[in-house]
């Protein structure tokens, strides 16, 4: 097979995968519309998008990490830590310092994750699993389940411009910015290079460790932003621990979204924009499950099955390339 032939077939496969993602989303929405009249109204679809944006923001960071072949299991815990800390420090007032402290906290978590993985060479999922458990302990030692979001945060998370929620605009904006950064900057290129082949990227002069560090910082910052909006969205801190590690449901959703998008398995051809579809597919499914009255356990099962099935399908698709 010639080089050009290989490329063309890859492009075809890429288009095919995007079509699959799109049609999956549309089919699911149509089925839901048939099952439940009122699902297919603009108002409800916008509500779903609104509900999706928080985890969508967290999934952006997760995508960047997964592009390098790593994983961040501490996304959910970081979100809830920022959520609780923000509520505690803000106390329902408009102040900038608590917001900065929250983002600083997220930055710190990212630096520790990245440093552990890049410099101490701890495998990514062990580093972030350990971090998740440490944060779980820390949050229940220090945080009180009290406090409120500041009015501005609440305004940004709940209000709408016309009929489109501000949060959705923020989410799409961040996705677009990150997609551009990943495609057209040196950092983005380096990230893809490490994901493709770390040894090759090392020998071509990319400082793998620095890029890895940056990637985990980005993931934590996005988790931090998502945590702040989560606080704004609900108004009060969400501090429930129901097994599986703190915030593991958010972590799971963010990973599942990236997997549905396919970034995990196609390396350099994956990207932020694919995760957008992944998150939407998941949230539409969740909304159907909630209508059917099996929200919590159903969500877990559906996400798990999807993670396993889609992984298998993508790997089959990719292997048939050769």
């Amino acid at each position, binding site marked *: 097979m010639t080089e050009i032939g290989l490329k063309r077939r890859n492009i075809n496969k890429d288009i095919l995968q995007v079509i699959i993602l799109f049609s999956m989303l549309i089919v699911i929405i149509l089925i839901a519309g048939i099952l439940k009249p009122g699902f297919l109204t603009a108002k409800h679809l916008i509500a779903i998008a609104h509900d999706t944006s928080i985890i969508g923001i967290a999934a952006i960071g997760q995508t960047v990490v997964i592009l390098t072949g790593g994983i961040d299991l501490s996304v959910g815990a970081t979100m809830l830590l920022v959520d609780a800390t923000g509520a505690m420090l803000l106390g329902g007032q408009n102040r900038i310092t608590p917001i900065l402290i929250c983002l600083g906290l997220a930055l710190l978590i990212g630096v520790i994750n990245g440093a552990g993985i890049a410099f101490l060479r701890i495998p990514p999922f062990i580093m972030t699993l350990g971090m998740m458990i440490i944060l779980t302990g*820390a949050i229940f030692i220090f945080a009180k389940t009290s406090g409120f979001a500041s009015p501005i945060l609440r305004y940004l998370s709940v209000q709408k411009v016309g009929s489109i929620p501000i949060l959705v605009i923020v989410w799409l904006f961040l996705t677009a910015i990150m997609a551009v950064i990943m495609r057209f900057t040196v950092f983005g290129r380096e990230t893809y290079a490490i994901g493709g082949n770390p040894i090759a990227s090392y020998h071509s002069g990319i400082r793998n460790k620095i890029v890895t560090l940056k990637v985990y910082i980005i993931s934590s910052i996005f988790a931090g932003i998502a945590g702040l909006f989560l606080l704004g969205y609900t108004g009060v801190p969400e501090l429930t621990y129901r097994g599986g590690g703190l915030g593991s449901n958010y972590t799971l959703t963010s990973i599942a979204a990236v997997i549905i998008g396919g970034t995990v398995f196609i390396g350099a051809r994956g990207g932020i924009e694919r995760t957008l579809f992944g998150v939407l597919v998941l949230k539409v499914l969740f909304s159907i499950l909630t209508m059917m009255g099996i929200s919590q356990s159903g969500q877990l099962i559906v996400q798990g099955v999807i993670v396993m099935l889609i992984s298998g399908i993508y790997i089959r698709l990719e292997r048939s390339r050769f």
Partner: protein
Amino acid sequence: MKTKKIIGEWYIYILMIGIWVMAGLAIPHFRQMSTFMTIIVFSVPLAIVALGQNLVILTGRFDLSVGAILGLSSVIASVVMKSNLLLGILLPILLGTVIGFINGIGVSKFRIDSFIMTFGMMAVCQGIGLLVRDSPGGYIPPGYINFLLKETGHVAVTPLVILIVVLLVGEFILKRTNFGRGVYAVGNNDAIAYISGINVTLIRTAVFTISGLTAALAGLFLSAVMASGDSTVGSLYPLDSITTVVMGGTLLAGGRGDYKGTIGAVLILTSLARIFNLAGINIWYTYVVKGLLLLIIVAIRMFGAKEEREVAL
């Protein structure tokens, strides 16, 4: 040279005795027989889970679903044992084995990354567990609890026996069977193992199946300890089992390690939890300590490893 080798192999037990002596000197309560028995009882489920996890890690993979399988096994036992004790024991075992088998097929046949596969499976098992029982409860027959936890003269015989049997079985499988040699070979280099005629797919599937089975067994034991079923009881077990296996001297990349070190690490981890408890420290500090412990141990282990792949990253 020989003493050095012996110390290298048994250092974890030296560490354990050191911790026990220090704790015994500092906390009077720690010197009681009942404390020792509590440590043994809570070591049993972790030791059983760690056996499966140890096999999986020796092949260079991970199983994150052990905790969820454990919880699922415990809730199913708490539902079924009410009507039929035998079925209540067999059903969780069967289910755990099947779940482990699916994990194994996904990892070996479909080549799905082990932590993605088992992370997905973790969610599914948690979901089913919540569906069966969304809060702790249920019925575990007193006879069953009695059989597992009965004390004869302040000594809980059955847990002690189980711990020793599990240790012997684990060491036997790894050191004396063809399967054990296959596990080491696959972990060292699966391409070479394949060329030398080892059925790599079979071994990979088998270790995950065993891991599912051991997690289910641990769930059955824990449901006797708690006298109820709880789907979230296993949430720390993925972390704990990986910690103990790595602490016990098994390489994360696979291929090197043994089970007796893991048992030593299990005893240390359980002792630490007990010491924290006796010292009256807030339970959430154990989370922080456990997480830190895992990271520190892995960091120390990785410090020695010098493969090009790791240097590059």
